[in-house]
């Protein structure tokens, strides 16, 4: 066998399919879809999106039942009823916890009684708003409500889309009792249907991405409908559209080619802006930017409006990378950025005066600007209010770009006493402090700080500086564990792009977000292989996205005993 780990997958898939409807009417139909895909997988899982073999060591791992987070809930409601109601805001859903840098980790997304109460209220409010809107109502109730069969028809159609799978008639029977209840209380059929619809939206089949484990301890391929949901929440943070449902029903999502086709289509859809936004706010962590409060006395050029400008710069900068118009290596080494006059002036870009309020693409002096590590968003969010922090910058790079976070600091480290007299640069002070401290301190800082030192030409608000106070900036150094020397940001960004950990890390970030779980050591061979192909094939993010979307962890599921 070329792919020993996958042989179990094939067996399980076949067995699952042979049992036909045994997992129950609701998931059985989808089960046979998987069986249909089994033979296709035998050939196609062997190849990635570009026709290169997936690592034979790839294992799917286990994704915990994922609740929709606030963003996914809002988008799903939008696409389900056609109204952008944003219930997470109007109903004030409790905040979602994050796991491993993203907000869709199944293990840490919990539900308390407060959440379930909010879901009930939201479901009722959504149905009420949709039935009160003529356009939305017409789509939800396509039959004449006076016909006896109409409530079941309308409810069935809603449940199919809301639960993202075929729904058997007997599943809906308990929901339809609500129509009768309303009648006995003197209310109309429409009131009763509204109750049933609210119940459909309060069901775990709606609130969670359900992937049953009909057989214990095997690797099984996802059903077409499960695959459709994984793809749509990966790229749209929302439910599948009809084209995806159709592809699922036709068994096309059981094959790498079918997934690749859908991913291409989906990335071109406006809904894919959700994917770009996740990369900006979660991977690049601009979600923390709003808390940045640089000290206005020390940095008189700082204006709070720059926060939004810097985030917008990053958003516009990432868009062509996500769409494939620019290579992902530009993330660090671009010769351009996006700015309006305010930001360009703040950065000291030469052509600032010619710009207006609108953001435009501008060329930069590559010795000073270009790439996220020389953009304000990163430089500000890793700084203290009164000074920049080489340690925080180094840690951010290790964590977000190289996926090699340093170990946590000891519990009792004193903060840097900036009031204590010291003659020299911040860098010299830190180096002296860590040299004098115990090896617990110096060992880690020797790994974390150098890449931060390379960015010493940027102050806490992201402006260029040649001097640190009275002393000239020293941005030279050697990359930890290598003999690669650098002088300044341009050098260090080149070194990061050349580090194979960077390409694998981009793959890891997409995988963590795509799967909604942490990656483990078992995933590392696959991530290294994906990263390798990604960097060798011209750093095309859509291609990497396709490879992730059609990878073994995304197409298969490690089942558990019940």
């Amino acid at each position: 066998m070329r792919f020993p780990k996958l042989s179990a997958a094939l067996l399980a898939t076949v067995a699952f399919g042979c049992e036909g409807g045994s997992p129950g009417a609701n998931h059985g139909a989808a089960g046979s879809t998987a069986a249909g895909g089994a033979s296709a997988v035998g050939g196609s899982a062997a190849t990635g999106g570009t026709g290169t073999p997936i690592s034979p060591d790839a294992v799917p791992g286990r994704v915990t039942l994922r609740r929709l987070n606030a963003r996914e809930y809002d988008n799903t409601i939008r696409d389900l009823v056609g109204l952008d109601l944003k219930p997470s805001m109007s109903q004030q859903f409790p905040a979602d916890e994050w796991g491993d840098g993203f907000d869709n980790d199944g293990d840490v997304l919990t539900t308390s009684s407060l959440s379930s109460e909010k879901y009930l209220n939201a479901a009722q409010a959504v149905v009420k708003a949709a039935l009160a809107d003529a356009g939305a109502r017409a789509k939800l109730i396509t039959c004449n409500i006076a016909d006896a069969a109409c409530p079941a028809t309308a409810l069935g159609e809603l449940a199919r889309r809301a639960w993202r799978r075929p729904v058997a008639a007997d599943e809906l029977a308990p929901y339809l009792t609500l129509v009768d209840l309303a009648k006995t209380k003197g209310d109309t059929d429409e009131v009763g249907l509204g109750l049933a619809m609210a119940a459909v939206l309060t069901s775990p089949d709606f609130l969670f991405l359900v992937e049953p484990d009909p057989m214990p301890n095997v690797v099984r391929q996802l059903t077409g409908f499960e695959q459709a949901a994984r793809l749509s929440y990966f790229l749209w943070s929302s439910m599948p559209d009809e084209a995806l449902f159709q592809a699922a029903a036709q068994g096309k999502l059981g094959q790498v080619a079918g997934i690749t086709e859908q991913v291409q289509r989906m990335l071109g859809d406006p809904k894919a802006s959700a994917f770009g936004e996740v990369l900006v706010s979660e991977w690049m962590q601009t979600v923390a930017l709003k808390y940045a409060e640089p000290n206005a006395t020390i940095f008189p050029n700082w204006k709070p409006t720059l926060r939004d400008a810097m985030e917008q710069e990053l958003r516009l900068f990432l868009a062509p990378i996500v769409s494939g118009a620019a290579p992902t290596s530009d993330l660090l080494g671009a010769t351009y950025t996006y700015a309006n006059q305010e930001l360009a002036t703040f950065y000291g870009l030469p052509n600032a005066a010619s710009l207006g309020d609108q953001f435009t693409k501008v060329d930069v002096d590559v010795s000073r600007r270009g790439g996220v590590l020389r953009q304000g968003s990163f430089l500000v969010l890793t700084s203290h209010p009164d000074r920049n922090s080489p340690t925080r910058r180094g840690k951010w790079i290790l964590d977000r770009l190289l996926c090699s976070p340093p170990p946590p600091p000891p519990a009792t480290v004193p903060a840097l006493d900036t009031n204590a007299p010291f003659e020299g640069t911040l860098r010299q002070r830190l180096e002296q402090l860590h040299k004098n401290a115990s090896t617990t301190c110096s060992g880690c800082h020797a790994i974390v700080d150098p890449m931060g030192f390379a960015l010493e030409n940027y102050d806490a608000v992201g402006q260029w500086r040649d001097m640190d106070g009275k002393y000239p900036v020293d941005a030279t150094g050697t990359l930890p564990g290598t003999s690669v020397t650098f002088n300044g940001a341009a050098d260090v960004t080149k070194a990061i792009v050349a580090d194979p950990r960077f390409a694998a890390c981009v793959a890891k970030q997409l995988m963590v977000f795509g799967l909604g779980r942490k990656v483990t050591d078992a995933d590392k061979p696959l991530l290294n292989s994906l990263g390798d192909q990604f960097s060798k094939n011209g750093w095309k993010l859509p291609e990497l996205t396709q490879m992730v979307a059609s990878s073994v962890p995304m197409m298969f599921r490690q089942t558990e005993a019940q």
Partner: protein
Amino acid sequence: MKPFRLSRRACLRGAGVAIALPFLEIMQPPKAAAQAANPLRFLCVYSPNGFYMPQWTPAGNGGASYTLSTLLSPLEPYKADFNVITGLGNYTASISNIFGGSHSRSCGSLLTQCPIASPDVSKDIQNGVSLDQIIAGTVGKQTRFASMEVGTHASSTTGNCEDSFSCAYNNNISWSGPTTPQVKQVNPLDIFNRFFKDLPTMGAPMPTENKDALYQKSILDVVLQHSEALKGKLGKTDRAKLEEYLTAVREVEMRIARLVDGSVAGHECNVPAPPKDSSAMTLPFQEHLDTLSDLIALAFQCDITRVGTYMFEHSFVDTRSFSFLPGVTGRHHEITHSDNASDQEVKINTFYVQRFAYLLSKLKAATEGDSSVLDNSIVYFTSEFGNAHLHDMRNVPMVVAGKAGGKFKTGQHIVYPLAPGDGAGVDGRGNRDDVQLARLHLTTLHAFDMMQPSFGHDEKGAPMATTTLSELSA
């Protein structure tokens, strides 16, 4: 039916005036009320990032005749109504396989007294059930809401948590299950709408049937019924996740069922106009805190709930600037780790103690019969550490206010000397032989007539407490 009889009155706070006006005034509870007129309440108020202990701990060896410390001096008007307890340890917080995450471990275990799972050895979240939720499991059946969890900060939302520990530990002291934090409400208007909006108004005729509640209950019944089939199809971990949701649904269903059959208790009280909407977190910090205190006092007074947890802020993840306090520049956590900023730390601590004093004033002003809501409560005021700079888990600051309906003796400084020897645990900050927080929690449970034999457990599964703190008993 034991209906609420409420009247609404305007409140200037609702119009945005941040001055201390009487937010509520109690009316005499109905003589016919069948439930105990003065139920016992529990509230834990958490203040983040420890306290500057040299100015927190009162001088002397304890007893009834002691002088409040500098930091505690804002509590002087209520000195007869609380105890200061010195020397309570949180050993469970120090149990860890990995270095780091100590704020998370201390905060997460504060009310559970169970070890927090280290991220490298276990599932993403693993804790125990917290004291407030154990109490709510019993007394919560008698009120409209089993418990109330509030704070000023929803989530850390910086993408960064402490050393790979889930932010759930740092953000929540209330846990209804090992993997289920009771997430907080933070917007006063949202809290008001949830707890007070639907109360029947005084003078209005009581509806013969609560149809809306019946419909809601029926929706949840259908969902629960349908979910039974789903449960059987899932693997173990997923089923536990689903069960977490279904448990939450069941809790809401039971709560609504009590509204449908009219079996919930309630006291007559005045409900003021709704507070300001601060969904965008725009309220000044002090106004935000005081409004939350008003709402807690109101919920206790109206007997809408008897159990609460209240987090002033989160520790560690610093997103709030304290520059609104004269002489303070920066954030709380950073300041506690700065070698030359204890004056700033004291200013932040003082601010928090003053806000707790405001809460006590509200609970004490809420009279019921011959006593006050404060008299009939057990109110903790605490933090995850003593000395925050050292992440000290051996001397957790603790004020226990309220007479527990006559069961607690108050007005004392109770001192438990620390056990000899150094701290233990991965970072050397806890000691199993100190008098443990778990003993206080067990004492509180017994005051609720919940006579559990023990509270919490250590890494070996041995109980953290089997005896109560006799010094508290009246």
